[in-house]
């Protein structure tokens, strides 16, 4: 290992990127744009109100009494807007189709004290979104029943060990997004850079010098590690920071940055992302062996990147995955980065936490395996 040769490879990669504004934009501007969009979408979802109506199909006074009590309970339930104008089931269905109602509580014609089934009717186009109204309706039902029995319901207050019960989806996604982008962009850029070495004839020239394969991999890792460092610093600053801009003339006031609440040490978060990124550098070098054009590098995205996004804990916890997929998720580097980042940024864990140390250790191990694979495939026999 010769430090001067490693430094030469490192300097070359930095110089090449400085001359390539499009790649720089991909590395620094694209993640910010995507995260800003994600943050905007997620944070504007909070103020959703459901339009609910109660329809009484029983035609008997007992049914009407139940409906009235339900309406009274729903009317005071937060997040629900009650529509009292709906007369019967078919009007309700039409109003659901016209998006004037989100949910209809139907007391069916056979409703009685013996048959106490009521129906919750929704449109059915967006099952998950429609279901999110149901807890509020159930709460109203409980209140109505309690009122009838003359009892008072306890008030429920949520509390969490880590973070705050008011944490939004954005708060839990933010740490994940930081790691995933570093992985994705570093993989793509290294893969394409190294492919260009292979097809441009410069790799042949490199291998005709005394530089060793390990020195090339290390130089590449340092070079892309440098850019990953800048990217992660920028993305973390954007995710964690928040700069309120006052209104200026016709431009309304707006905020730069997401201002996500975290408790952890950003340096440990950065360390996790850096080790993940180093693995991505070597994976890019390794997979460039199997590509002959830049398009073929992009073909690795559905194979290498998308499964990591789906299985790595980005959207669903590993424990919720089908039993067969759980072992697969446990060999993906992104899984460990996401877990580590959540531990650090939400639970405030530091390097004394065995969980964080395990995540970091596994990531180091995976990076080492990828580095060995990358070094082994650099000297490919060109047939």
């Amino acid at each position: 290992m010769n430090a001067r040769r490693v430094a030469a490879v490192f300097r070359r990669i930095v110089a090449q990127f400085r001359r390539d504004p499009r790649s720089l934009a991909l590395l620094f501007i694209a993640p910010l744009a995507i995260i800003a969009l994600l943050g905007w979408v997620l944070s504007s979802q909070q103020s959703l109100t459901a339009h609910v109506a109660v329809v009484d199909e029983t035609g008997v006074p007992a049914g009407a009494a139940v409906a009235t009590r339900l309406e009274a309970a729903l009317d005071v339930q937060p997040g629900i807007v009650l529509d009292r104008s709906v007369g019967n089931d078919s009007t309700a269905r039409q109003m659901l189709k016209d998006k004037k109602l989100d949910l209809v509580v139907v007391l069916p014609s056979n409703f009685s004290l013996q048959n106490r089934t009521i129906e919750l009717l929704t449109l059915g186009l967006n099952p998950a979104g429609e279901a999110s109204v149901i807890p509020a309706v159930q709460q109203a039902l409980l209140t109505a029943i309690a009122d009838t029995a003359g009892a008072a319901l306890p008030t429920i207050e949520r509390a969490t060990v880590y973070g705050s019960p008011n944490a939004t989806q954005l708060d839990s996604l933010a740490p994940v997004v930081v790691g995933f982008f570093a992985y994705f962009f570093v993989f793509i850029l290294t893969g394409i850079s190294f492919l260009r070495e292979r097809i441009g004839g410069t790799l042949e020239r490199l291998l005709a010098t005394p530089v060793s394969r390990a020195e090339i991999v290390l130089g590449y890792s340092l070079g892309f590690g440098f850019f990953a460092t800048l990217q992660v610093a920028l993305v973390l600053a954007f995710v964690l920071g928040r700069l309120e801009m006052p209104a200026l003339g016709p431009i309304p006031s707006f905020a730069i940055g997401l201002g996500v609440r975290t408790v952890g040490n950003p340096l440990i978060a950065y360390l996790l992302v850096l080790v993940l990124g180093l693995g991505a550098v070597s994976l890019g070098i390794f997979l460039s062996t199997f590509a002959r054009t830049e398009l073929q590098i992009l073909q690795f995205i559905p194979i290498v990147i998308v499964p990591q996004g789906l299985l790595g804990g980005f959207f669903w916890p590993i424990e919720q995955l089908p039993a067969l997929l759980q072992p697969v998720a446990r060999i993906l580097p992104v899984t460990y980065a996401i877990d580590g980042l959540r531990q650090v940024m939400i639970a405030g864990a530091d390097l004394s936490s065995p969980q964080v140390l395990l995540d970091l250790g596994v990531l180091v191990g995976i990076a080492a395996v990828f580095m060995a694979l990358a070094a082994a495939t650099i000297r490919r026999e060109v047939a």
Partner: protein
Amino acid sequence: MSNSVPPAAVVPTATSRPATAALAVEAVALRKDFGPIHAVDGVDMALPPGRIYGLLGPNGSGKTTLIRLLTGLASATSGKARVLGVEMPSRENLARIGYMTQSDGIYPELSVWENLTFFAALYGQTDKNDMLKSLELVELDERTGTPAMQLSGGMRRRLSMACALAHHPAVIFLDEPTVGVDPALRVQFWDHFHRLAADGATLVVSSHVMDEADRCDELLFIRDGHVLAQGAPDDLRARAGTDNLETAFLRFATEVVASASAGSEDARTAGSKETDR
């Protein structure tokens, strides 16, 4: 120039026989198979230093593969390759070898100076003044800041050569160095090669253009992975009974097919001993 090269004794020489230590480039029954194709088919060569050797043969005759074997970039199926007495592949020995590939092999985004200093640094050459001199030799010293992608084809070729020679190698392999180079520049290239040889360097230049052959001290006719004949251009012409090198090449080629070349007979039996199955 050769005094800037580490003495041969520094490099491990356990694998080299004393008798061959004086040779710059040596191949013993060198063979490379790609599946059923014998790209290099039992080549023997022993090239003393300080001369320009021309590897002459049509496209696909095995010249590039032979150079890749001699520089250790490809691993031989059987046989041995030695450069300056050291068996290849040897990463340390590459510091004394220069290799100008057929493609330019330079980084288009990097400037002339960045390309040169990058390759020089990998070879351990850090003398800035000396590097500037290598750029003067190829007349690119006024273009140090120009990105390589903005250079003309001939300039890129010159930069590629400067990158291969910046560390003053004792043995230089040049794979088709004058392809796509205009006639005036071609003359400059060859003048430069002769100066390097006069300073003690050994040059192995591959070409498929016969009119360049006369500029070499010695020629090796290559076809189908074999060395058909070796000798000075005049000598080869005389042996073939013609004053045209192209005709000489064709006569040697047909002769080899007919009599299986007496000269390389030993080589081919030695080579096949290890690969016969």
